[in-house]
């Protein structure tokens, strides 16, 4: 074919997409840009950004028992945990200090997998900006704690699964306790 034929065919493609962008709907070749600040894309449920700690009722007692498994499993080692101790110095099942260095964390989600106590999950909130590179990205326990309600809101089906499992484990634990209790009542 003569020199220009292939070029013309290509030109038609771009012209068609130029015209489509005005008349067609987004998924048939029209414009599909979501203009970010005004309109937002709905985050997928399994989307994972930086981790956060979950507490049931009060932020004071999170689910985390400072067992340090996630700190050991974290590939880039960005979690530091210091176990709390009560007045006499006996260790408590609560973290006194729980820091995650967000500048090191690569949101891989391994801490969520490794945590046996469903205490740490990956968040959906990604608009995190610090004014300074080191201190402002080092999140302490207070910044990390979020309620189970928030967890249920951002990840409904996962939260439902976990809550069911936890309630069932609780019932089993209560059931295990109860048989010991009733005999006393009988005598």
């Amino acid at each position, binding site marked *: 074919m*003569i*020199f220009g034929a*292939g*070029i013309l065919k*290509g*030109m038609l*493609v*771009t*012209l068609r*997409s*130029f015209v*489509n*962008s*005005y008349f067609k709907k987004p998924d048939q*070749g*029209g*414009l*599909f*840009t979501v*203009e970010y600040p005004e309109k937002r894309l709905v985050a997928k449920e399994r989307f994972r950004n930086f981790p956060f700690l979950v507490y049931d009722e009060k932020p004071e007692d999170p689910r985390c028992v400072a067992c340090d498994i996630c700190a050991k499993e974290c590939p880039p080692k960005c979690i530091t945990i210091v176990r709390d101790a009560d007045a006499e110095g006996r260790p408590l099942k609560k973290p006194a200090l729980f820091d995650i260095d967000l500048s090191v964390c690569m949101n891989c989600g391994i801490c969520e997998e490794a945590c046996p106590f469903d205490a740490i999950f990956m968040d959906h909130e990604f608009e995190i900006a610090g004014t300074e590179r080191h201190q402002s990205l080092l999140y302490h326990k207070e910044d990390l704690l979020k309620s189970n309600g928030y967890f249920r809101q951002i990840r409904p089906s996962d939260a439902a699964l976990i809550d069911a499992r936890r309630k069932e484990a609780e019932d089993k634990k209560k059931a295990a306790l109860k048989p010991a209790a009733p005999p006393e009542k009988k005598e």
Partner: protein
Amino acid sequence: METLFIQIKTLLVNAAALVLPPWGVTLSSMIISALAILGLGPLIMMYLTLMERKVLARMQNRIGPNRAGPWGLLQPLADGIKMLTKEDIRPSAADPLLYFLAPILIAVPALMVFAVIPFGKGMTAADLNVGVLYFVALSSTTTLVIFMASWGSRNKYSVLGGMRSVSQMISYEVTLVISVVPILMAAGSLSTQTIVESQSGRWYAATPWGLLSCMIFFICGLAECNRSPFDLPEAESEIVAGYHTEYSGMRFALFYMAEFMNVFSICALTVTLFLGGWQGPLLPSWLWFLIKTYLLIFIVFWFRGTLPRLRADHLMGLAWKFLLPLAVMNIPAAAMSHFLSEPFSTAVPLAILMVSVAVLSFFNKGYAAEKRVYHFTD
């Protein structure tokens, strides 16, 4: 509506006449048209950049700039302010004279060409009777200036860019001039005004040789202002930004303005020479001129959005081995149609052109694309 701008100018000139002596009046009318061009040029350039970004975006399923002002109308203003406030970095080894002069000397011819373009009936700034030659002379001076820019900034990439642009400009300028000759023969004069008037009956692009020379002129014009398939001198992927790599801030803006005004003047001249300038029914003449020019400019951006870049030797090959002989053959074809009687006046030129295209594509077989066959194994 038709003579809107002419009335404005006569109004201003009469106002000046009250105050100034007779020689002052002619001086003021000259200055008014000069100011009109000085105002029009950068304005056109600003809104061409916006149009380019919008057209390219729409071709790529994007929205294009729409943050600055409604539909992005203030985007050129934002770019201008950015260019002004951006720090003007000068390489220490740069040759002060060349580096400083180049951006100025590239913007001057780009603006001067506007004097010759007939924007509407009676709206040509300076109706020289060497109009087309004036345009060709000015567009040939840019070669020198690009050389100054590339050599002045002492940067290997810009020297490469400079070498490429000079060789490209020289080869395409020759073809540009020869492709205009059939039109001058038909119109009988070099002045753009008379060329447009002579097209009142039939546009030159309607005749076979006219269409061919229009295409050749347009392609060579693209190469002249380093646009789309021929933007070798400023090929981002190879030599960063060619001759204006070392320029930033307002100096780069001058290069950018010169490029866009060249695009506008090439399209304006194609319209003037081939598509009947401001000829057109109903609408006022200057509106017709603008519609036709902006259609051609859309085609330039359309090229930019689709075609990959030609390589240096293909570029030269295309100019010297294909376009130039075709333009030269076009001259006798145009002469034939002028002198022969009716039935032959379209048949003979067509025959000449067909034969020359066939012969030239035979000789340029090497450039044609090979059909490839792919087999599959498992």
